[in-house]
């Protein structure tokens, strides 16, 4: 075996270039080089990011837990010296044709790859195809003769049943024309998204949701939707192109083309080994059992099961979940790197368990069930979650169940948003959001694993095994990479599951969705403002109610019926205006004040209606306003109500922004003096006000109850949704805004009306 002799020669003084060092596999590889290959120098190809140089990224990388055991063993000083002497950073971007590599490389491990399974098609090609081309062209230019270890994936074999040998892929896809098509795809989609028909649809959707907040919000939302649409198109493009060409997804498709690029450029010119790991999971032994970084392929599945979300599984019980511990992959990669093949004969390795030690879904499920029965997840203060029992109903039925569930949820959400809101609907919304999250999680998992769990390919590992048996000395000491060495029960229940469930932060299951507002803290610099909406937020009355109270006070009882009838007759018009545009509603409704004598109105408010406002006020709101004042904050009231109607609570505010009726000769004309401040206008007003008074909006507070207050709430650092309508509630819980329920001790409209006008 010539390769082994060569390997022993190379171990003397090597120089290895590593890409993807910040990733899961990359970190493990770097750690192994530092810990177990003392004579190997390493250059890391790392890209600087905005605000962080490549060197800083590497410094941060070296503080990761993966290096902790090694640092403890050799001591911090030795570790630092080792890094200084052996690690170099090359700040460069893949996908850069001017890349210059060192000319003394003995090996190159290309581990960089996209993280996601369904990225937009152009991104997938840029990293997995173009990046490979640029890197290997640079290798050729550099003049050195490194052994290129190309890390790919076992799933590049595409849709395949039965045993798959370790050899070059068989397909006729031309990577160059595919790359060109992918590069052009974005421009196409961008152009497509600007077609009138597309834009109209997107705008209409945005208007339906955001129309009440105002035209600016609608425009912003529509543009965001357009960009989302482009991304979706590109994702769809990638997914479908991959399917048509014979792969599961764009990830495996581009990885397959990446291998072809490597073969095209390097065969006959440089030694090439293609390593194809299956699903890489936490370490079995090295750097320590259970080491894992970030979220890997199977974690969502494990956590979803533990949370009780994964009630059924769309796979076959005898299907194989091809999992391989990360340290075995690293051992295989480095062992391969030290044994370059002939340049004419690229070498292929599957690093997978399915051939020698298959893990079936049934076994996986049994291990999960045992593990979570012994270590149940807590259920947010409600005891523990019972691990679900799987029946394996088959993919089609599972998918149908899921689809039905999604449809029902969509209908329920629609109904909830259309209906009136109350504390009960908010509770329903909570339930709905939670169920939705569970279903979404299922859908994501189902999509993610859909093809993998259906996969019936068995990746042969004969060459891997030969390499394993060739290990000598130090290499063999790390345990090698024979998948038959894995005891699944031990690995899953004692190493992998604890690592996955332990690395997760926060409560196991989020139950309480909304949180109340934080305590008001004094800021001391007089630059904080607390801005309050009135109706629904501070008082539970509305324009119509206060109008009616004032009007009935003025009218003789005999005419009450007529007034009520008229109000009812016009109600549909008011409601339609309200649904369409809050400002329009205020304008329409204020016409009713036409003919009122201003002086009479003031007297009625002073005598009667003023107290009605206090009756309908939320004591908790009043307390909150007073807390802000006590904390030295400036308090502002912003409302579409008439100025004189807010007088009873005006002393609580430094500034009140109200509507004023236009008065001619002491009589109200039914018109307003200036446009009512609603929706975005409120946010714009606040921004201006803050600028003029040099206030700090990031430390400020805003309180509102309706979705039309959203722009106002978004303008500050501490938004609070008070007794929110369903739409605002949904938004608030998504954004993790504080939600306050301030309805205690507020008199009902009827009681208040009786106390006021009788």
């Amino acid at each position, binding site marked *: 075996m010539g390769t082994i002799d060569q390997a022993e020669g190379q171990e003397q003084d090597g120089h290895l270039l590593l890409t993807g060092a910040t990733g899961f596999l990359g970190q493990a590889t770097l750690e192994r080089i530092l810990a177990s290959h003392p004579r190997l120098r390493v250059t890391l190809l790392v890209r600087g990011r905005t605000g962080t140089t490549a060197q800083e990224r590497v410094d941060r990388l070296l503080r990761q837990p993966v290096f902790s055991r090694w640092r403890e063993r050799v001591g911090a000083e030795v570790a630092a010296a080792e890094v200084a002497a052996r690690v170099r950073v090359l700040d460069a971007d893949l996908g850069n044709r001017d890349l210059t590599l060192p000319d003394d490389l003995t090996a190159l491990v290309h581990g960089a790859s996209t993280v996601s399974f369904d990225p937009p098609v152009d991104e997938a090609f840029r990293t997995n195809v173009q990046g490979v081309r640029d890197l290997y062209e640079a290798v050729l230019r550099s003049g050195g003769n490194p052994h290129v270890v190309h890390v790919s994936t076992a799933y590049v074999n595409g849709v395949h049943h039965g045993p798959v040998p370790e050899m070059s892929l068989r397909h006729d896809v031309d990577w160059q024309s595919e790359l060109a098509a992918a590069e052009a795809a974005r421009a196409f989609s961008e152009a497509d998204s600007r077609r009138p028909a597309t834009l109209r649809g997107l705008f209409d959707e945005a208007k339906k949701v955001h129309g009440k907040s105002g035209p600016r919000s609608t425009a912003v939302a529509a543009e965001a939707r357009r960009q989302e649409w482009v991304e979706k198109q590109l994702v769809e493009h990638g997914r479908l192109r991959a399917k048509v060409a014979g792969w599961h997804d764009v990830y495996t498709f581009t990885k397959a083309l990446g291998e072809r690029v490597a073969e095209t450029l390097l065969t006959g010119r440089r030694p090439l080994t293609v390593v194809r790991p299956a699903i890489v999971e936490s370490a079995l032994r090295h750097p320590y059992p259970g080491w894992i970084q970030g979220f890997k392929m199977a974690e969502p599945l494990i956590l979803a099961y533990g949370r009780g979300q994964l009630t059924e599984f769309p796979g076959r019980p005898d299907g194989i979940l091809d999992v391989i511990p990360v340290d075995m992959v690293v051992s295989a990669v480095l062992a391969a790197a030290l044994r370059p093949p002939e340049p004419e004969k690229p070498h292929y390795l599957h690093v997978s368990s399915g051939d020698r030690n298959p893990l079936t879904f049934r076994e996986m499920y049994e291990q999960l069930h045992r593990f979570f029965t012994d270590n149940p997840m807590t259920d947010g203060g409600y005891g523990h979650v019972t691990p679900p029992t799987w029946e394996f109903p088959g993919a089609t039925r599972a998918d149908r169940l899921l689809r039905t569930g999604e449809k029902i949820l969509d209908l329920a959400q629609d109904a909830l948003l259309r209906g009136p809101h109350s504390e009960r609907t908010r509770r329903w919304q909570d339930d709905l959001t939670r169920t939705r999250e569970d279903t979404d999680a299922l859908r994501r998992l189902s999509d993610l694993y859909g093809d993998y769990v259906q996969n019936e390919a068995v990746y042969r590992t004969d060459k891997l095994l030969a390499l394993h048996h060739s290990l000598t000395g130090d290499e063999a000491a790390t345990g090698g990479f024979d998948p038959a060495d894995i005891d699944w029960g031990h690995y899953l229940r004692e190493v992998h599951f604890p690592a996955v469930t332990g690395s997760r932060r926060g409560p196991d299951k989020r139950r309480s969705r909304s949180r109340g507002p934080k305590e008001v803290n004094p800021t001391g610099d007089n630059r904080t403002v607390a801005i309050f909406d009135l109706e629904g937020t501070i008082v539970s009355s509305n324009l119509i109610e206060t109008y009616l109270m004032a009007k009935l006070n003025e009218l003789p009882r005999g005419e009450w019926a007529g007034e009520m009838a008229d109000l009812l007759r016009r109600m549909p018009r008011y409601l339609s205006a309200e649904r369409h545009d809050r400002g329009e509603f205020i304008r329409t409704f204020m016409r009713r004040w036409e003919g009122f004598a201003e002086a009479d109105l003031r007297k009625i408010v002073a005598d009667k209606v003023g107290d009605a406002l206090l009756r309908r006020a939320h004591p908790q709101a009043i307390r909150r306003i007073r807390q802000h004042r006590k904390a030295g904050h400036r308090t502002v009231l912003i409302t579409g109500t008439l100025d004189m109607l807010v007088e009873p609570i005006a002393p609580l505010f430094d500034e009140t922004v109200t509507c004023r009726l236009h008065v001619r000769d002491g009589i109200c004309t039914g018109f307003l003096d200036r446009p009512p401040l609603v929706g975005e206008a409120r946010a714009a007003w606040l921004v201006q006000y803050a600028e003029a008074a040099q206030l700090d909006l990031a430390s400020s507070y805003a309180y509102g109850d309706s979705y039309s207050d959203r722009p106002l709430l978004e303008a500050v650092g501490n938004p609070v949704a008070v007794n929110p309508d369903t739409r605002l509630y949904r938004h608030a819980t998504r954004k993790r805004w504080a939600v306050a329920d301030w309805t205690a*001790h507020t008199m009902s409209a009827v009681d208040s009306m009786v106390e006021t006008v009788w």
Partner: protein
Amino acid sequence: MSRPGFVLEVDERTPALLMHQGEGFRLEKLPMGSRVIYPPESLPGLRDVDEEIRKALAAPVGRPPLSELLYAGMRLTIVFDDLSLPLPQMQTPDIRQRVIEHVLEAAAAKGVDDVELIAGNALHRRMTPAELKRTVGDRVYRSFFPHHLKNHDAEDKENLKEIGHTRHGEVVEINRRAAESDLIVYVNITLTPMSGGPKSVSVGLASYRSLKHHHNVQTLRNSKSFNDPPNSAMHHSYNRMAALLAENVNVFQIETTVNNDMFPKQMDFLNKREWEWNLKDQAAFLAVRRANELVPPAKRRQIWHRTAAPYGITGVNAGAPEDVHPITLKNVLRQQLTEVNGPSDIGIWGLPYICPYNVNSIMNPILVMSLSLGYLFNMYQNQPIVRPGGVAIFYHPVPNEFHSVHHPSYIDFFEEVLAETTDPVAIETKFEEQFATDPWYIHLYRNSYAYHGVHPLYMWYWGAHALEHLGDVIFVGGDRKTTERMGFRSASTLQDALEMARERVGSSPTITYQHTPPIAMADVR
């Protein structure tokens, strides 16, 4: 002739006994051997009240007849007790209306033009126009409202006048109009021994500056009880203030007392002893209780507050406050006092739907505390009906309900202060100043219909003596969270409450139920 009060010992023949429980009532079987304090039967009312008023004004004690005190060109101010008296409200015409009409007639006869009427509401909420009208009658209301019939405003600095300091350094500050009048006629209803006499002007027309000298924890802990003026530090303070007032203003006090007819004819069973209920009473009880359960809560409250008492007037006396009040007190005690032989381990009280501060309003948890540990616990002479370290059991649902217009500072007191401490001294030290001077509360007191900001703290102080004396306080049927916030416990039945009480007072405690309705005052020997 009315039968005197007595103490019943519960035996096997004793029927279930009536108890108030907020806006409802129940019949409760008490354990054998329990004592029940009944006040004297309702005294007969005066036959001709107008004649008695005329007589009182013509022949006062310690003052010349009223007509001799009136002259043209004088400033006359008539002050009357506010909405907090009597409880429940009196059927119209209110005795205050009758007295005021006589006084005004006398004044008119003498050509007095400058007359003002002021409700002596101190830090209580303003009376609404409708409430004022009900109290003084339509005629007086129409002639004087709004310019010459007003509520006292304890925060109107311009219209307060400092009279001076007592020898204990207490500031006496009252309504300026009254202070600068040639004569103050005070029209009073003395429902319990606590009110009337020296308290009327010195408290009813005072400001926070002046009130804080006697409305504090120290004074109330040394008022044992505040319904027994000779043993009440609070009344000693009133007396000092009244003496100073007597040197500076001329007060003509007209005091009236009522009998125990607290409920109208159709609810006569509430005024009767249970074993004497006839078939009609039993039917009425069942009907009223059922109807009461069926009415929606807001409506139920409204009905109770609109139910006015057909009180009989047991006395009308006029003259110098210090001379007329002893006569009045005698009349009150004649109606309410029952002698009891020693205290017991456990005291039981049923709490009604009303107290002085929730007329036409909501009985909030703080008011429940002041009614139970303040008013009812202190209905004694000599010593409380419960021994030191004993247990008080009250019947009330203690709902977490507040009237947001009438009691805004109560809500904040409950949410913010009680969450931190229930100790009266700690509350007084840390929070009194803040609540008393808060501009928003002052704004609401003056312009809306809110009790003064400091009022909930006073309510808490009312219970300070009981808190110190008792070992435990249990509310039967009380909301668990609300009672817990106030530092008390709740039980669902009397049996549970007694079980809980046994932790403190041993396995075979003595029990005394102070029967309400009607009002009973215990003379515990």
